[in-house]
């Protein structure tokens, strides 16, 4: 396997993410179907890009309209890049709906193409800078997500899922 991908998997796992590797999209879709069943996901948030349809969106029961839901079981999103150095998912946000799909649910499922894994943040510095320089609506954001939401605020004990997802599941395709 590509050493960059290996390093990404190692670091993401170290940060508390669950990483599943697939040979192709079909395999990932199969996994998604059984994951939805196993975790009894009735409806979740899905990112805009995926909303457009296709086998992935079909495998994930998602809310069609904009939602103000406070509690959501799961979210399905796609990352623009993966950072091998730290196991980080990079996402160029398209709007606050997008950010909510990443942040509100208890479980965040994220698709990432192996080819999008780069060594470090510096490797995509121009893309980040370029995205942030764009004007217009919605205004640009770039998010770096590494592992589930965490806190050590009580007795310095690492505890998962304080505000954002308690589980971050990465599907590598």
């Amino acid at each position, binding site marked *: 396997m590509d050493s960059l991908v290996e390093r990404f998997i190692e*670091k993401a796992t170290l*940060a508390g993410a669950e990483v599943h590797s697939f040979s192709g999209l079909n395999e990932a879709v199969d996994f998604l179907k059984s994951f939805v069943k196993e975790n009894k996901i009735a409806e979740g948030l899905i990112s805009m890009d995926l909303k457009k349809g296709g086998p992935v969106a079909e495998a994930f029961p998602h809310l069609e309209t904009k939602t*103000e839901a*406070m*509690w959501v079981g799961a979210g399905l999103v796609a990352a623009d890049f993966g950072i091998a*150095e*730290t196991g*980080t998912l990079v996402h160029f946000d398209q*709007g*606050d709906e997008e*950010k*909510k799909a*990443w*942040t*509100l649910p208890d479980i965040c499922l994220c698709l990432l193409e192996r080819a999008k894994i780069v060594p470090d*943040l*510096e490797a995509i*510095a121009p893309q*980040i*800078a370029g995205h*942030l*320089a*764009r*004007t217009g609506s*919605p*205004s*640009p*954001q*770039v*998010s*770096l*997500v*590494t*592992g*589930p*939401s*965490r*806190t*050590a*605020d*009580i*007795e*310095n*004990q690492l*505890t998962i*899922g*304080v*505000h*954002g*997802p308690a589980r971050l599941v990465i599907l590598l395709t």
Partner: protein
Amino acid sequence: MKTIDPALKKVLQEFSRSFRVKRQNVLKGYDFEELRTALAALKDDALDRNAELLDQFEARARAHGSVVLRARDSAEANAQILKVCRDHGVDKLVKSKSMVSEETGLNDFLAGHHIEARETDLGEWIVQLAAERPTHMVMPAIHMTRRDVAALFSEKMGRPISDDIGGLVRLARGEIRKEIFAAGAGLTGANALIAENGAVMLVTNEGNGRLVTSVPPVHIVLTSIEKVVPTTADTLTLLRLLPRNATGQSITSCVSFIAGPHRGPQYIILLDNHRSEMLADPRFRETLRCIKCSACLNVCPVYQIIGGEEYSHIYMGGIGTLFTAWIHGLKASKELAKVCLRCHRCEEYCATKIPIADLITALAGRIKKTHGAPVWKRFAFDGIMASPGLHKTAFRAARTARRIISKEDGFSRKLPAWMKRYDRFRALPAPASKSFARLFKKEFGMKGAKGGEPGATKGGAKGTVTIFGGCLVEHFYPEIGLAAARVLRKLGYEVKAAPGLCCGFPPANAGFDKAAAEAFGALLEKIEIGRPVVTVCPTCTTMLAKRGAEITGSEKAKALAANVIPFSRFVAEHEKEAVEHLTCEGRPALRATYHDSCHHKNLLKAERCSRALVEAALRAPITEMDEPDACCGFAGTFSVDNPEISAELLADKLEAIERTGATVVAMDCPGCLLQIRGGCKRKGLAVRAAHTAELLEEALK
């Protein structure tokens, strides 16, 4: 300053220990020195161009549709936020951690105008619920146990809540999320502002930053002017160091770059609050390089003993003292400045190489100028030390009174009850019967020189060196200076002694620059500078090798500085072979441990030399104690200003020494020796505290 309860001290010390382990792990494979040098240079450049970068940031942020407001002080920033709330009908505001809002006292201000400001960072939320103040920059509720938190939640929820941490966090998750969805505005700070595109960078772990910026309709950023950097790439440099140095993570779980408003309007408030004045001050502007990682706090020995509530006005610890002096006024920093040990440990960890301890010293000088100094310091420094003749007479008088003061076991009699706090925890030494200068002259002087023993070279085949003892050696521990002299003579050097004058460090350290310049100047006049000046006190060494030249600016001081070298380094570097071939037949190997004197390790970086010498001299590897580089609590006038903290630091040090089972504790500083030897005496420990030079001399006999 009050010390905290032992349970909390244990928590803070354990936190400090685990932080250092985690940090070391995530820095593996990285050159910390290189990273922080780059970051410091980047911040310096950004500070140089601060006004220009702020204008650029403002223009770019406006182009994204953000409203950018400048605030001169806390009152103005608070008023601006109030207006935003009123304009948008906000009666509840949620906050993701913002140190600046604590600086401006925003929560209380808004409460006074019937607007509720709720923290969402778990630790801050707990502290707010308990109506307390954060006690750590990154770990606000570190002073509370899980039982405290459970009791608090039970009281607020009106039902019993178990102290399982997972359960407590889940409960908080639900409660806080309800608050976020009910809020009309979300307020965050910023870890950086990017001039080239007007974006704000936020670094969080919990994910509350993402919720606070995406759920409520209005987003307010309250931040300060020094956060602006030129480019996106600069923030990546910052990002490589910030989480590693803050919490020992390679990156935090959420980092957001936000350029422009999202759901509704976005207001960015850039607070000055005297930072422009700080920026214009050539001495103190470095402080603004701070990235608020709190590593300095995590390793501060004093913080672990008095805690964040005592050791803060708003901003905590040594770096906090500096910010306090500018933001909240010199007077607010007066008591805080006294509790800094000047041990320089924080500087080993600082992400942007801020000379925190030296800046505290400079601050002490300004405080003294504006608010005066206590009578005893004025008497000791301006009265006695500024006049070398008087200084000498005072010690001569003490020697004459030795019979009365001393118990003839090297220690002084106990102090009277009203002064008990100064020698309760450590016996104070008795003045030596004869000064180092006199004893040296007797043994090495032109007349009556003993020399002559086998192996000693009379003429000094390797050249001449000057031994500088310093006040403690001159008046209390002449045996250390004599030991160093004997070792050097044995190794083939001719030795001379520097005049027995004070180097001027104590007044310099207390902000008495004039007295320091006079004491140092008197020494400079008499000392010969054309040859190596070998020192046995790291604190004097820093004065001779750096501070003295800074204070006087004289060429002779610079020449002296270039020739000053600590005894351990001189021997370890120049006499490597002799040390390796030390044959100490018949001497049993002793179990020894080594205490790192702050200035010896953190400033002179000579601790490895000393360890090698001690191991060679005692024919045994050193048994390292826990935290060998934790300050023993002497720190000169510190132990007079803060005897209670000094006692706590010493107690920890003695326990660490005891745990090694060593019978000898070696060190390189006569001040540490005073503290540790006196502590062993009071505690009844059968451990010998000795200077490296003494151990080496015994090995060479």
